[in-house]
């Protein structure tokens, strides 16, 4: 496997970019539940959005990096934790790409817990299209992609067919988007200061291993394109806006964030890395919440600051959260808050700490998840401010 030429840039406020594209860490649980949610309604055309968002993101990232060749694209796929892709059979006219290892093809099953009825590797198909287009001098929209085989439904390897196409109107990424405001995150209690947490997370070197995967904290991580997530979430809601089901869609996006937090935060709380960095300094649930907020702030999601925290209520302020910035860049000012992932994340964090006693290191299995989720006194979350609506920061309240 070739080595990626280029490196992630730290952009301040915890934001990270590669080739000018913002990156965020997310796990197989979020990747599964987000995709499942946006594909629930059959006639929204979201399969095409998933593939096009992947193609646009991959193309833009590669364009921002040096080198116009397939090896660089293959290295990018592995570096970000998506697996191993072979683009050697792609020419300027088309061809096919294969995946011998695939996050989407192989790692979503542990999040789903049940067999798949349909291929899950739409991201791989889009990536192959965007990367192939970049490597062979076509426009970002230059290839249409079709999934010919997918490991999620039993194939030995993934296969994506590519055909040249002409599609003048194609989605654009927004790069790092607008800076939010001059607002600075307040100093809140910290077991370890943010700069040290940022450094510790960077030192973990959370990039694809020899298989192109990132198994860490009991989940499979990806360093993913913020544009991809935002395009899926917001285009899904936009297309739902006249169906009378938009609110239901918002609830399900928050649920995807909840499941992400539950498994990833839960895994971090249980990890040796947590013990090494935070363990002895975290003597209460409140300290655990502040400390997790500082770790989250190093994942590319923006800065998380808990300005109020008790066993009944928490107030989270978000500075440069990737959802609000992405919405603004793609659609302009929002009429409603849009930090769905973060809202679910806060709910998951509070329930883990105050209902699930996660600091006692429980086994994070399905029984535990259901017991906490079904608790009659679980936290509910409400978004109260949003950068996307012109506020200086986004704000989410969790209470019960």
């Amino acid at each position: 496997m070739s080595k990626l030429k280029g490196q992630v840039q730290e952009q301040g406020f915890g934001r990270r970019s590669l080739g000018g594209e913002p990156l965020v860490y997310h796990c197989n649980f979020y990747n599964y539940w987000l995709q499942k949610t946006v594909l629930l309604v059959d006639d929204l055309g979201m399969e095409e959005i998933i593939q096009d968002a992947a193609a646009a993101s991959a193309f833009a990232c590669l364009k921002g990096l040096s080198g116009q060749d397939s090896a660089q694209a293959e290295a990018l796929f592995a570096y970000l934790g998506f697996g191993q892709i072979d683009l050697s059979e792609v020419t300027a006219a088309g061809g096919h790409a294969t995946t011998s290892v695939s996050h989407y093809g192989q790692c979503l099953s542990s999040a789903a817990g049940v067999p798949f009825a349909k291929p899950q590797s739409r991201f791989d198909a889009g990536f192959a299209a965007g990367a192939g287009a970049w490597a062979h001098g076509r426009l970002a929209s230059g290839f249409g992609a079709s999934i010919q085989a997918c490991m999620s439904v039993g194939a030995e390897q993934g296969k994506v067919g590519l055909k040249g196409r002409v599609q003048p109107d194609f989605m654009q990424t927004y790069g790092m988007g607008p800076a939010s405001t001059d607002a600075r995150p307040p100093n809140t209690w910290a077991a370890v200061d943010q700069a040290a947490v940022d450094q510790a997370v960077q030192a973990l070197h959370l990039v694809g291993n020899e298989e192109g995967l990132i198994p860490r904290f009991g989940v499979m991580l990806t360093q993913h394109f913020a544009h991809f997530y935002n395009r899926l979430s917001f285009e899904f809601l936009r297309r739902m806006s006249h169906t009378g089901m938009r609110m239901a869609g918002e609830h399900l996006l928050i649920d995807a964030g909840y499941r992400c937090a539950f498994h990833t935060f839960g895994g971090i709380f249980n990890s040796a890395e947590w013990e090494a960095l935070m363990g002895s300094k975290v003597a209460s649930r409140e300290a655990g919440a502040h400390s997790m907020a500082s770790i989250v702030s190093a994942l590319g999601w923006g800065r998380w600051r808990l300005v109020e925290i008790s066993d009944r209520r928490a107030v989270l302020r978000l500075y440069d959260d990737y959802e609000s910035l992405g919405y603004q860049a793609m659609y302009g000012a929002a009429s409603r808050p849009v930090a769905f992932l973060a809202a679910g994340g806060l709910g998951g964090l509070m329930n883990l700490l105050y209902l699930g006693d996660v600091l006692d290191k429980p086994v994070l299995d399905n029984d535990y998840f259901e017991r906490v989720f079904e608790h009659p006194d679980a936290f509910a979350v409400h978004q109260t401010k949003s950068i996307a609506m012109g506020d200086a920061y986004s704000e989410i309240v969790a209470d019960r």
Partner: protein
Amino acid sequence: MATLNQIFPGNLGRLKLLRVVLKLGMPELKGHNPNQPLDPMLERRIRQALREVELG
């Protein structure tokens, strides 16, 4: 004849109901009395949609 509360118990059930609402394209289900027995035809559609959303 079952009720929505019987088919979708608890917090996880409420989320499954939302998925079924989207799958069927029936926002009016959210306003349905959760303790009222469902019309058998509707119940069959709901159970079929539930099987689909419970697949990966």
